[in-house]
């Protein structure tokens, strides 16, 4: 196993465990404000210090991990759930269905997730749900393209022809023969979109289009930190490090998985 895969697994695993543990235990209660203890630097009592409301930053990071990971994960789910069937359809029906799906894809591609978030927020107001929808919509064409590309190359292969001769329909072939064979591609792309989703969620929450108070999120912690970065730099530094570590971990994991799952790529690189 390459070291990248192990490092990536550990970094992403730490974020995941922190998020899960925060469901049952955090070092301090993040809903309790202790103004008397505000903006403390790291100490044995507060390992990463406290924020402007006296909340423990380590505890905030744990709860924030939950928001960030959940938003990114559901957004990947939306992207896969809609993008993969569209990609399969486009590959199975060259011609108008393919053309229509791909033009639709191009159209969504013209809307960066931030722009989708702006549109949704202007209409429905800001919330973490809107961030999920915006990132999810952005993910749809990504998965549709990867699925279509992988599926198209499979449709020319003999065993697919054999299945067709045996009388299986296009939908059934897509589900039974194409999908399992592009699962690797989808897992790798899923990891990449997961890490992009965490970055996007942080950005959206930072500008106020994502998670709203009192829901902690890494992006919101950075937004709060901005005004007091001179007084207490640590308030800005730790949430950023959490994002970097998680995204880096997921990217290394994605690269490592790609190499491990597809030996052909190992030679090409």
């Amino acid at each position, binding site marked *: 196993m390459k070291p990248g895969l192990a490092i990536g697994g550990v970094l992403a695993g730490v974020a995941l465990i922190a998020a899960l543990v925060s469901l049952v235990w955090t070092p301090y209660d993040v809903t309790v404000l202790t103004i008397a203890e505000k903006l403390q630097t790291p100490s044995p009592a507060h390992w990463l210090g406290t924020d402007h409301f006296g909340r423990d930053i380590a505890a905030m990071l744990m709860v924030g991990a939950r928001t960030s990971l959940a938003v990114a994960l559901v957004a990947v789910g939306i992207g896969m759930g809609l993008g993969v069937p569209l990609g399969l359809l486009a590959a199975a029906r060259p011609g108008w269905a393919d053309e229509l799906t791909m033009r639709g894809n191009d*159209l969504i591609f013209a809307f960066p997730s931030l722009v989708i978030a702006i549109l949704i927020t202007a209409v429905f107001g800001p919330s973490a749900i809107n961030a999920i929808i915006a990132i999810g919509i952005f993910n749809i064409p990504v998965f549709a393209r990867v699925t279509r590309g992988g599926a198209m190359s499979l449709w020319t292969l003999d065993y697919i022809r054999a299945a067709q001769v045996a009388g299986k329909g296009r939908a059934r072939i897509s589900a039974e023969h194409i999908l399992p064979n592009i699962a690797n591609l989808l897992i790798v792309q899923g990891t990449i979109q997961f890490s992009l989703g965490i970055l996007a969620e942080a950005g959206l929450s930072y500008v106020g289009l994502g998670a709203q108070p009192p829901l902690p999120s890494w992006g919101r912690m950075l937004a709060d930190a901005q005004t007091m970065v001179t007084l207490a730099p640590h308030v800005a530094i730790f949430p950023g490090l959490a994002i970097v570590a998680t995204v880096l971990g997921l990217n290394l994991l994605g690269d490592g998985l790609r190499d491990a799952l597809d030996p052909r790529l190992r030679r090409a690189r």
Partner: protein
Amino acid sequence: MARYLVKRLLSLIASLLAASLVIFAVIEVIPGDPASYMLGMNAAPDTVAALRDALGLNVPLPMRYLGWLGGMLTGDFGISYTYKVPVADLVADRLLISLPLAGLALLLSTVVAMPIGLLAAARRGRPADYMVMGGTQLGIAVPNFWFAMLLVLAFALHWRVFPAGGFPGWGDPLMALRALTLPAVALALPQAAILARVLRSALIETLGQDYIRTARAKGLSGAQALTRHALRNAMIPVLTILGMQFSFLLAGAIIIENVFYIPGLGRLIFQAITQRDLIVVESVVMILVFAVILVTFLTDIAYAAVDPRLRVRG
């Protein structure tokens, strides 16, 4: 080439029309009555009626869409509801800040990424390559707005080389550039990391081609073969990424402007959202999407210019 251009131009127009329909539909159709939405819950009925009139909401939907579209074609984006000035003027002022910022970042990321990608490709599998790959992996993972905050801490508050925020206007170009330096660096970092990686893998792929062996056989050094033959052929994937990155850069600029309190498009659109100025939101979103579609179009044209084979495929 002319046939190809016409075909691409038609698809550009189709994309723009489709995008404008989506934006129009989301903003004007879904939220119920835009006038009462913009005025808030406590608005008097006659105020709402007056705004409905001013916004032209009593006209049938298809006519309103055509009116909006026609207005944009002639540069008339409507009147901002909060600022009471033409949206076109507002946007033009802000574009004069956001576009140079995005352009500066694009330039910076290209200038940084080119030598790094070349170095990594030339020294592939050796320590320099591993350092570049590790460093760029880190660069991709850093959120640009957080990097911007760190830059402010270091270069504006600690060393006081650059201003921490604000924009003095283009009256003094040097001061303006100074104000845009830190934001551009923050924007450029992740882009440069991605670009360097793409350039490296594209170069490594072309280095395996027969014509590189021929070039080496006729006596060119490795570095000469790399810069004269491999680099030019590796430009296609690099151009693709540059084109795609533009949309990320534009979105990034909108966020970064918030860190530095720069009065660009980003500040305008967030103020418009909080003040429910739907006309401004609609127009700015359309301009952003227009920019992305236009850049995709230009990238396609650039390929065809670089690689004649692509003109046939269309």
